[in-house]
């Protein structure tokens, strides 16, 4: 079997897991949760195998690079980081309620990677500029950050919906797996995801700067991708300052998390397709 097959299955496994998680919440059947978690783990495994096989295939074609060099490969890795982040949250917070919600982003990333016609899915040789060990370090760190921000942004939407519908009534902490985590817990996860994402985005920007300096002799050239990643960094820096010094939390923090996520989407996607610059090969 080849990588494309595994990644194809991954898309549908994530979809199935998403549906089962949602079914568990709607029909309040806790037992479904275990199945959904098992499916998610299988999905992550298929996703990992797909990435590793693609890596092997690129060596077989005599190109040999870690599959993180274009839009397709980055989306596949993005889905992987979201699913893994979700599994960690499920374990730490002992709740499966968020499964359908967060995993749907992993599914969307995979579905977009598989079905979009905007970019090529072929294994293509690397341009001379991309042939560096910094490629893996830069892309992996950035995407861990992006995934954390994606989870924070997704949960922020959930928070806003819940805050609206419950009129800010605070629930007692969850007992059953299908019980919604209360608003405080959601706020806590959003905040932690922002911290986590911020740290990795910082590492991502730094590795990018060091790489640029080793390839071109400039660690910062205000290229649109660089500038947008800095804008994103500033948005989250603002969020953290507002929280630490002004005590922002809850609804206001959720809005900031959402704004940050929009900035991430633009940095990741918008810059590649709407603006031109050093990172245009990312498409």
């Amino acid at each position, binding site marked *: 079997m080849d990588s494309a097959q595994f990644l194809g299955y991954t898309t549908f496994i994530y979809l199935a897991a998403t549906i089962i998680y949602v079914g568990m919440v709607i029909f309040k059947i806790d037992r479904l949760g275990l199945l959904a978690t098992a499916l998610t783990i299988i999905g992550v495994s298929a996703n990992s195998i797909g990435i590793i096989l693609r890596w092997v295939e690129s060596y077989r074609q005599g*190109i040999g690079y870690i599959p993180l060099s274009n839009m397709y490969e980055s989306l596949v890795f993005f889905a992987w980081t979201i699913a893994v982040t979700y599994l960690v949250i499920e374990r730490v917070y002992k709740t499966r309620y968020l499964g359908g919600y967060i995993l749907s982003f992993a599914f969307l990333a995979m579905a977009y990677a598989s079905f979009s016609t905007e970019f090529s899915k072929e294994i*293509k*040789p690397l*341009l*001379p*500029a991309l*042939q*560096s060990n*910094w490629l893996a370090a830069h892309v992996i760190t950035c995407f861990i950050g992006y995934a954390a921000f994606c989870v924070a942004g997704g949960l922020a939407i959930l928070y806003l919906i819940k805050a609206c519908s419950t009129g800010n009534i605070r629930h007692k902490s969850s007992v059953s797996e299908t019980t919604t985590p209360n608003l405080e817990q959601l706020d806590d996860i959003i905040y932690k995801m922002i*911290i986590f994402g*911020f*740290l990795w985005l*910082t*590492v991502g920007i*730094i590795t990018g*700067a*060091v790489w640029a*300096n*080793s*390839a*071109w*002799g*400039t*660690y*910062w050239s*205000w290229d*649109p991708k660089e*500038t*947008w990643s*800095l*804008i994103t960094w*500033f*948005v989250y*820096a*603002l969020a953290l*300052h*507002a929280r*630490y*010094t*002004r005590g922002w939390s809850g609804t206001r923090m959720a809005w900031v998390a959402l704004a940050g996520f929009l900035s991430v989407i633009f940095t990741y996607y918008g*810059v590649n397709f709407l*603006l*031109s610059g050093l990172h245009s090969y990312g498409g």
Partner: protein
Amino acid sequence: MDFKEYSFAKLFASVRFAIFIISLIVLTSIIGTIIPQGQSLGFYAAKYGQENAIIMEILGFSNMYSSIWFQSLLLILCNNLVICSLDRIPQVLSFMKKDNLSADIAKLMRNKDKILFTSNKDRQAAEIAVQSVLEQKKWKVQTKRNADYLLIFSEKHAWSRLGAYVVHVSILVIFLGALIGSFFGFKAFVMVPEGETVIAISNRNDEQTQIPLPFKLRCDAFDIEYYDSGMPKEYRSDLVALEGDKEVMKKLITVNDPFNFSGLTFYQSSYEPMQDQYVVEVSTQSISKENNRLNMVNKKIYAEPRKRQAVKDKQMHFEILETGADGHGHGPYKIWFDDEVGEPVQFFAEDKKSVTIERGELSYSFKIKQRYATGLQVVKDPGVWIVYAGFALMLFGLYVAFFMSHRRLWIAIQETGANLTIILSGSSNKNKAGFSITLEDIATRLLNEKTLELRRM
């Protein structure tokens, strides 16, 4: 330092102002990503109209990130960082130096995390046991004897409260490195034809300014490697640094692997095929043992088409008669050759492919390819290591700010009648859930101390 007396400093010390400045930087940065940077006035006129182009030129939108107003915004942010930090660090320091042994029982009971025990042992035994448990977990203790109770205090990572300020300082360090780079460094460019030596490079900011090199730089060869698909795989330049006529350092550079020498770094940046210039490699091999040593050659010759070229001496000549039926001048090449051993010959050679011709005792091989000039970006940046130090400091600061917490622990041993009451209490400025677990762990260890015979209340 108290800045509050000066309203200007007060403004700079406020987080609200910092948030305002950062928001301004964010919004203006967006403009620079939408409007293409560094183009000519004509480009903007064609794209946005004559009048708009002039307004944009005045506002510095064509080179926005180096415009005075944008750089001023960055400078204001730096100022804000300095004043904000100077304004707050004293409070943090005084908190770190606080006398935690002055706490009373009531304060201990106010902490969210507290566990109470009783024991019927005496106070001294309890003190020794408690201290040994804390020291096992690397908590350094301070004690204070009060009239009716003994207070033991210990804290960890008080300095972690400074984490956020380490991040602020790191940003300043990065700016400092960038400033040093822009004042004491330069970016320059040079095209070096294969086989030639340069002694000066031209400044990127001002093409007219030639910067002399402290050594001579020669390019021995430039080469492009292709994938089967025809996409370029690697650009390579063979560079040599010379002092006088002595080769002091050699390196084969590629795009991600530059050449460092005497404070300058040479990056593979571009290339140019040279019009009507070819590199011809000629070498001889002897066929018989008694070869004619005088005629042995192994040379690289830069040749122009339709010009007779001496290989070694007047006796040995060649000429590129035609440069290519392909229409691009990349072979097959038609070559005329004469070594005055026999009659002159004419033969064809494919681009970059070696062709061997036999002439009596010797065989000659010819290899012909396009001659290139390699484009090198030359950078002197004495600030880059300061920038990197800033990066490292930033990551360290973020780690401390996010993941390390100032944890404080108090244990009061109080004699109540014949019994002892032991209060274990503590607080943490971050990761409170993690701290509760730590406190429970200490409680379990205290309960396991045989000499104490503690009971949880």
